[in-house]
């Protein structure tokens, strides 16, 4: 990548570089002059009180919300000007907060749509469900504990199974940067344990950006933690450092 901006100087190795990012909704700055760097293979957890701008940051990265100013570079490529599907093709995957799967399609078909081939109109018309596709889908289904429900329609899955399916849909997409918005929210205790195990397995060999409230879970997986408050970075570092930061205790953990 030779697209290093002037003044960037150091840090050529970050996978994701967010600089001076601001978005304002009718004057309210949901994200305010935010800078954030994510390394290759780093698992970064974003925490912060409600309304801190966590989900908005993910929305900005994946193109759902357009930035007012600032830049987001992924592997040196500017994302703020790309459409959502181009950002996906660049290698960014996103899981939504509420499970977002296709109720009317089977688990198999849900996974198949996320299979990274035949994404144009004519590609989709001529897409063939060959042995390679089937094998990959079965492999993913095994990982997300849904092997025996492959031909069941999405609407008949439990909440936790829907979350797993969506994680599986991201996995088959094989993104370099995986963004997860509260992946264990609303799960039963057993589902939560299984999900943590699943996440630990899938986050290997890729960078992950997670929003999560469950501190136990955060402690388990995070390499580094970023605390957001009112659209700005309040503190950043290891879980231990962040937990002992008086500013963080003041606005978040203390309550």
């Amino acid at each position, binding site marked *: 990548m030779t697209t290093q901006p002037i003044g960037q100087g150091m840090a050529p190795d970050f996978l994701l570089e967010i600089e001076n990012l601001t978005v304002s909704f009718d004057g309210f700055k949901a994200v305010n002059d935010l800078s954030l760097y994510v390394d290759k293979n780093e698992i970064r957890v974003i925490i912060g009180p409600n309304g801190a701008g966590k989900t908005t940051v993910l929305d900005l990265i*994946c193109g*759902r919300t357009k930035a007012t100013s600032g830049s987001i570079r992924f592997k040196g490529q500017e994302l703020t000007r790309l*459409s*959502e*599907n181009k950002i*996906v*093709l660049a290698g960014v*995957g*996103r899981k*939504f907060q509420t499970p*977002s*799967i*296709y*109720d*009317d*399609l*089977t688990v198999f*078909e*849900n996974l*198949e*749509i*996320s299979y*990274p081939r*035949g*994404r*144009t*109109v004519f590609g*989709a*018309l*001529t*897409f063939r*469900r060959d042995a390679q596709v*089937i094998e990959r889908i079965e492999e993913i289904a095994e990982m997300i504990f849904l092997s025996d429900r492959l*031909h069941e329609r999405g609407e008949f899955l439990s909440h936790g199974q829907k979350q797993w399916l*969506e994680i599986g*849909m991201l996995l088959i*997409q094989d993104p370099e940067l995986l963004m997860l918005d509260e992946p264990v929210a609303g799960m039963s205790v057993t589902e939560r344990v299984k999900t943590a195990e699943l996440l630990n397995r899938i986050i290997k060999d890729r960078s992950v950006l997670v929003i999560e409230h469950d501190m136990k879970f955060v402690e388990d997986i995070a390499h580094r933690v970023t605390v957001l408050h009112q659209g700005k970075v309040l503190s950043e570092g290891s879980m231990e450092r962040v937990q002992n930061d008086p500013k963080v205790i003041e606005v978040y953990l203390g309550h």
Partner: protein
Amino acid sequence: MSVFSKERYGFLARSEILGLLALAALIVVVVPLSLDIFRLNLVGKYLTYAFVAIGLVLCWGFGGILSLGQGIFFGLGGYCMAMFLKLEASSVENTKIQSTPGIPDFMDWNQLTSLPWFWQPFKSLPLTLIAVVAVPAVFAFVIGTAMFKRRVGGVYFAIITQAVAAILTILIIGQQGFTGGINGITDLRTLLGWDIRTDHAKYVLYFVNAALLMGVLVLGYFVRASKLGRILVAMRDKEDRVRFSGYSVASFKTFVFCLAAALAAVGGAMFTLQVGFMSPSFVGIVPSIEMVIYTAVGGRLSLIGAVYGTLLVNAAKTALSESFPQLWLLGLGGLFIAVVLAFPNGLAGIWGAWIAPWFARLTKSGSHGSAVANGSPAE
């Protein structure tokens, strides 16, 4: 995979092949043998609307894009064909009493002295046949791109298609000299010298129409069985998830809208050939909504149901409007409301829920559930 492969032949399930054969037997054998040529021609006319209904199943049923303006494309296809036939009927010989011989009569009445430029391509049959599909498809592409790129959808899209239908009707009526105005393009006689008004021609055209309709149905099944068909259903469910799985949602919506438009246009062209004229009364708001009702009655998720829905509603329309002309529109409105409330999946839903299981029990074939596939995996 085994669940899929067991009963599939290519992209068609066994129940779908049986359904297609049954329909083919009905419209190619039973109907022609049991009706006189006047009634047969009427059924042929109904079947031209079925092209629109099949397009609506793909676009609205699967893709969730409700277009209340399919009359636009039906009309454009019909007008393209009518322009060719009209030019052929307006030979210098036939129009020698006009002040400008060799142009269509309505142009002469409106003091036009030469053929407008956009009529020129319709002197050629190959160009006309291309235009029948291309003009509506390009028009749909322009509307689709403009709307879907801006994420206009749902009710707003439906209203805009209605507005376009209204505008096009007004334009056709207003530009009398170029379009024949409110009367439309009438007095069509021959296709490359072959008189389309004879009983024999009507028979031939009926069968051509029926064959095209079966072809379009097979095409519809192909699209539905492809990954594109599943993406349409996925888009209807969770548009954002599709977008964030790397698909350009606008392109897929535009594609299916153009496909529906092209199918409607083929129906329109066959309408012109069989009925012998084209007029703005098939373009506007009312016919466009009627076409949606055919689809709803047939079951908006069933390609083959769309054909039965079209036949049923039109047969009822003819029967009722012959005896109670004023009541018909009320009846049609009532039917639409009743179907949406009581049978959201229309005839195909009734078939899948009641008749097919009864058949299965009767024949004890044990292949229960396969007939439900008629209602698509996406009901």
